[in-house]
């Protein structure tokens, strides 16, 4: 019984044409028992970046609280919002600090930098960054998410197409995983002039 599989949950992020999308399921369990069906693992960091933290739920919240503190301090000192690339490195160093007693989360990061260029990344539980160009997956349904994403993803998807693609990737992957599911949320980030515009949608999925 792995610690990463105690609470369950999965996340996926994808790159589109001048947009990114990130999605997660809503289940919180205690091994086979489902405890809550409203536990989102994705958190907004800036108006145009979000981070998903699937894994052990207590560490999901702890790492989010640490990240929130660090990104708030960054904004106060630098007087600007943190870029997604820098955020990925911040997540990496936050996790590597605990190299020999790690946080049991495997984050995915998605966002647009100020020029609107899409960026996604994921890290392992000790902060090794994966700079993917297409999609990143994490959580108990990661293998299923890899399979779904590899088949469904194609480059240069428009925001509405990307929404459909990431939704089907997540829904069909979690339906095959006992520890993920019970609802899902998708965030699509695009540029609205010079501001990030985030559209958050709840998915209709199998509630079992």
């Amino acid at each position, binding site marked *: 019984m792995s610690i990463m599989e105690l*609470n369950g949950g999965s996340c996926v992020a994808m790159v589109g044409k001048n947009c990114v999308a990130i999605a997660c399921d809503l289940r*919180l369990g*205690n091994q086979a*028992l489902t*405890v*809550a069906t*409203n*536990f989102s693992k994705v958190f907004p960091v800036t108006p145009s970046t979000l981070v998903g933290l699937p894994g*052990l*739920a*207590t560490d999901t*919240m*702890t790492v989010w*609280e640490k990240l929130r503190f660090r990104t708030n301090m960054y904004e106060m000192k630098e007087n600007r919002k943190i870029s997604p690339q820098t955020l990925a490195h911040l997540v990496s160093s936050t996790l590597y600090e605990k190299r020999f*007693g790690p946080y049991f989360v495997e984050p995915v990061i998605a966002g647009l930098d100020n020029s609107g260029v899409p960026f996604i990344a994921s890290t392992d539980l000790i902060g090794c960054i994966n700079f993917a160009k297409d999609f990143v997956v994490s959580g108990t349904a990661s293998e299923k998410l890899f399979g779904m994403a590899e088949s469904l993803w194609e480059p240069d998807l428009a925001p509405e197409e990307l929404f459909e693609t990431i939704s089907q990737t997540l829904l069909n992957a979690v339906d095959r995983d006992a520890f993920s599911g019970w609802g899902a949320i998708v965030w699509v980030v695009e540029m609205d002039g010079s501001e990030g515009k985030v559209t958050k949608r709840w998915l209709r999925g199998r509630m079992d």
Partner: protein
Amino acid sequence: RNHIALRPSSAASWTRAELAKSIRSRNPYSVNLLLGGWDPTSNTPHLYWLDYLGTMATVPFAAHGYGAYFSLSTMDRYHNPEGTLEEGLDLLRKCINELETRFIVNLGKFKVRVADKDGVRVVEL
């Protein structure tokens, strides 16, 4: 210090942080909790499920322990989120009856407490 009691959401967040600190200490707390309360600033009830690892979830109804495997099913079926206190106590009675019927351990008498706008008090089921 602040001449006012903590709101339930703040109390739950603080407790969660203490538990999260404890789990990686030399001698961690081994306690799961259900935290319920009334927030007088917004006039809303709150219920939180916390465990010894520092996991926290906002839930409409909750249970801990082996009894949870029985009572959650009863609550899934009969819980009314807009119900009155009497309906809630009735639901509690149904859960306890379920345990008395199907659970191998005899749990004896339950102590029931209510938290609402009039504060916290003990209630006889």
